[in-house]
């Protein structure tokens, strides 16, 4: 079978590799690049644990082929913190205890971060709808919603300051 050369910019850094067409983006990240921050949850396009941003939009990386990402930009949970400082959404999950086991957290944060970039002041309803493709089996979502609200406030503060 044929191999395909791909170049993907991940968290601002260019990566190149020869891959089989059947390699899923999540396996490319975790197994080829050892970036294990992105989790594999259900393997059925249901749970959203593997969510990454592809050209700025959240996608389930278990349902994208690595070859499809050729020439594109991927942002993973490893790319959220910058200059040794947590991203507002990470700080929100920390401060509001938006997790228990933490398995859904990377995907949850990649979706919420994109949501806040598109809609900096979401209502509770908009947050709940926005994260409805990401499943959490621990928290009951209460603290996740609070974490996103915390991040929205934090990001607004930064813009105003």
């Amino acid at each position: 079978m044929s191999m395909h050369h791909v170049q993907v910019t991940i968290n601002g850094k260019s990566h190149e590799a020869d891959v089989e067409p059947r390699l899923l983006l999540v396996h490319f990240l975790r197994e080829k690049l050892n970036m294990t921050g992105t989790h594999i949850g259900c393997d059925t396009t249901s749970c959203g644990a593997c969510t990454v941003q592809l050209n700025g939009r959240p996608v389930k990386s278990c349902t994208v082929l690595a070859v499809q990402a050729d020439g594109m930009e991927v942002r993973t949970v490893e790319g959220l913190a910058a200059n040794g400082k947590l991203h507002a959404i990470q700080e929100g999950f920390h401060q509001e205890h938006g997790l228990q086991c933490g398995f859904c957290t990377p995907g949850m944060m990649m979706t919420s971060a994109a949501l806040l970039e598109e809609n900096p002041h979401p209502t509770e309803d908009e947050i709940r709808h926005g994260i409805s493709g990401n499943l959490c089996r621990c928290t009951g979502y209460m603290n996740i919603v609070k974490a996103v609200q915390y991040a929205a406030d934090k990001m607004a503060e930064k813009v105003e300051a």
Partner: protein
Amino acid sequence: MIPPSFEYVAPKTLSEAVAALGEHENAKVLAGGQSLIPLMRFRLASPAMLVDINRVEGLAYINEADGWLKIGSMTRESTVDKSPLVREKYPLLADTTSVLSDPIVRNLGTVGGNIANGDPGNDHPATMLAYGAEVTAVGPQGERVIPITSFFVGLYESALAPNEILTEVRIPTPKPRSGGAYLKRERKVGDFATAAVAVQVELDAQDNFVSVGIGLTNVGLTAIKATAAEDFLKGKTATDENIKQAAQLAADAAQPIADVRGSEEYKRSLVKTFTVRALRLAVQRAKGG
């Protein structure tokens, strides 16, 4: 789960994509991939060749022209969902995309893929039946127009030839005093419908139905056009009594089977209830409410 091996091409033009489909036995089009890639992971589908049309230019757009809303087949569901034009003038389509799978899947899933897949659990088929839409397909002989009423042939089977690509979906621009609605029961966000009903109506000045379209999701081998219910309402006044009688005819047209989502009786009952509610909402919207 890892799909079986396959060959892959990502052409930049439609003619190259059509040619690639013709050159290989068991080639499949990769659109948004949100149904096909899971099927391949489960090894329920094992195409020898994927023709990825995500890099083909000019297949993603939404515009109104010549009395139609024209949607390029590679338009992402999230783009339709957020379109001000769709939200303002096409409430049935707006309703449909807002409950179609989940917000992350909608970022990649495409309108064309949702229709071409031929899955009775997909949401656009019933909506397009209610709208009286048509689709265009391009193959080696060029483009042809297929009315949506003859598009869904069977379970995962459509009128598309193996080397044809669905390129555009066209919805008739609604006349004044038109309205629509899509109501869906799902066990959780992202699940296929237990049952869903799509309704599009047009009223005259006396609140009589000028036209009625009713489509049913996931209660048969294909999406179902509830023609007996539509014919019953045409020319009649939009009263609750008439709506309830039509809903019974829609429920009679459903061919559900019992599965994990519910019994046959439950699904038929959902169709009846949702047809009443969707017709009421469509009428309310047609009156400007």
